[in-house]
């Protein structure tokens, strides 16, 4: 890809601009679906964007004894991390910046928001924020292992560490959701936990610790942090769609090329929205767990399931190559 096209790819489509717009759409759909399920009206389409603009305009308050700069960079870092991660997610076709090992990079970048939340909670010297930060990190250690294992299983089977190549592999084979159903479920649950959504909204449990690490976030920082979580939702669903649902590639060739790209993009939208729907339903159908209960579930069931999946994949690789 030549440089102007690459810049276009990174900044406009499917890079930053599309990503932010799509994140707003995701937040809208998430809220709207939830509202309809709870027999409420829900927000209008423009609401997430309006919220964002409103929060940008609000006063940014730095708690006493906190260094301004530290409080400023944490949300920025988190946002930059998830936005970068999205570049490696195949949207219309294989990502142009893909390389061997970008899966690991995405996983690493996706953990940064949680770390940023912990840092924010720790820095803000607020009891609720500190407890929330500690909970965020505790939760990170609980879900991260099964989540990683579940996402690595497709890589092992496809024999590549690049998300785009895993997608290409699936074009000629069944989807990994079919081949690795356990891993798919673990990945969805792990994604829900990563995004700190009910039943895993333990770090920001409103009724217990106000807003956890978010308590002292105001104005621009809050806007950016919320956008980060929306973007992480898009990136996460895109990643799971790519790894388990075949991503944007069609199993058969389509002519001309622009039509193939368009169909790929449509597939990307359909698959990520389907994942969003599942995640939202999960959020609506449940209450919040306690951190010790999550610990039990995470290590006892999720981690065992993920390890089992990896073993199954290894066995399949050894005896039956699809």
């Amino acid at each position, binding site marked *: 890809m030549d440089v102007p096209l690459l810049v276009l790819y990174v900044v406009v489509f499917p890079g930053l601009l599309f990503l932010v717009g799509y994140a707003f759409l995701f937040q809208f759909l998430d809220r709207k679906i939830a509202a309809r399920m709870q*027999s409420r009206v829900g927000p209008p389409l423009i609401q997430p964007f309006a919220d964002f603009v409103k929060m940008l305009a609000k006063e940014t308050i730095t708690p006493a004894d906190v260094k301004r700069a530290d409080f400023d960079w944490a949300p920025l870092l988190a946002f930059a991390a998830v936005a970068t991660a999205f570049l490696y997610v195949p949207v219309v076709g294989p990502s142009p910046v893909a390389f061997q090992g970008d899966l690991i990079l995405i996983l690493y970048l996706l953990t940064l928001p949680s770390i940023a939340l912990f840092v924010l909670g720790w820095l803000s010297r607020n009891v609720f924020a500190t407890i929330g930060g500690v909970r965020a990190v505790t939760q990170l250690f609980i879900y991260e292992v099964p989540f990683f294992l579940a996402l690595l299983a497709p890589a092992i089977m496809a024999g590549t560490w690049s998300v785009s190549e895993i997608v290409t592999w699936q074009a000629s084979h069944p989807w990994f959701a079919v081949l690795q159903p356990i891993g798919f479920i673990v990945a969805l649950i792990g994604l829900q936990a990563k995004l700190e959504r*009910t039943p895993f909204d333990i770090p920001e449990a409103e009724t*217990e*610790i106000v807003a956890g690490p978010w308590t002292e976030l105001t104005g621009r920082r809050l806007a950016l942090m919320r956008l980060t979580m929306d973007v992480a939702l898009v990136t996460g669903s895109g990643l799971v769609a790519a790894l388990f649902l075949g991503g944007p590639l069609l199993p058969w060739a389509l002519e001309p090329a622009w039509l193939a790209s368009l169909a790929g993009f449509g597939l990307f939208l359909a698959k990520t929205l389907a994942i969003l729907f599942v995640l939202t339903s999960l959020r*609506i159908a449940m*209450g*919040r767990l*306690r*951190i010790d*209960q999550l610990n039990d579930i995470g290590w006892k069931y999720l981690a065992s399931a993920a390890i089992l999946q990896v073993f199954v994949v290894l066995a399949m690789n050894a005896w039956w190559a699809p």
Partner: protein
Amino acid sequence: MPEVVVPIGPHHPALKEPVNFKVIAEGELIVRLEIDIAYNHRGIEKAAESRDFVKVVPLLERVCGICSHSHTTVFVKGIEEVMKVGVPKRAQYIRTVIAELERMHSHLLWLGVAAHEIGFNTLFMWTWRDREAVQDSLEELTGNRVNYGINEVGGVRRDPTDRDVARVLRRLPVLEERIAKYRRMIAHEPTTLARFRGIGRLTREEALRYGTVGPTARASGIEYDIRRDDPYLAYDEVPFEVVTDTHGDVYGRTLVRIGELLQSVGIVRHALENLPGGPIKVATPRAAPRAEILSRYEAPRGELVHFIRTNNTDKVERLDIRTPTLANWTSVAVSLVGQHLADIPVVVAAIDPCLSCTSRVTIVDREDRETKTMTWEELRAHGMRFYREKRGV
């Protein structure tokens, strides 16, 4: 982890009313806690001593926003007993219907709040939607949604028409079905079970020892229900069961409240279908003879007690209100120790605390005194000015 003091309240998203807990926690576990309940002093007991029986009823209605009917009924019931007036049957039945509708709206509200405390917002939204049906019924019967203003000494103030009654009766089957659905939901939804079961447990002995009342006591297997133990209004003529449970935890309290919801539906239906005719009030003397009465009432949250002392005048000599929340409060502090920080909201919510009831007793502070000196005209002028300036009306 070292011990940390987590201040919860007086302003906290989990609390609908001001209360302050100083929770001393070690990591996520609660070591001990201190409770400060009184942020809502309004001096109602003192104010009640200076108002006659006509004026004191609306005042008592404002002791609590949820159980407003409870506070007026328990008071007028006591005064009527002192005056030895027989209240017409129809009035007693109407009071019973309102009381049970109030219990339903209170329990539905509670169910929603408890679900919200564990982050289960869907149940919260659903129960509050259904609560609207109850509130609409109350509005049709009394004209108001919160402070019904239907009680007065000697009877009730508004006679529902047959059309009102029919409309309320039509809503009941839907409500019954929904409540049954919530019972199934609570019994099967895994996160709810995980967060309700074994949390805030009180054994029967503890519940007795700490003097719990209402659903909190009944969830620990104590059959203590004033409606049956000391029947008032029309409860001796209406069939109903005292719902108890043996779990003793938040889950048990939920089951008891849902069971009571179904009983309340039955009571309302029976009372409305057998609503006797006749007058709705009798004339009462202005003054009450010198007497002392302990008036008890099963409010949605438990036994509500008004101790009334009268002295041959048209005012009470002393009105001592003991709210169910105050009776249950001791048990909360006990059952929270050793629990998780995350369980505070739901354990506290499980007794359905009503803090405006509980801390009603005290007196004017500076602002209140100022308000008092404001005459009606000044207040009116102030209100008009306020709206003209702020709202452009």
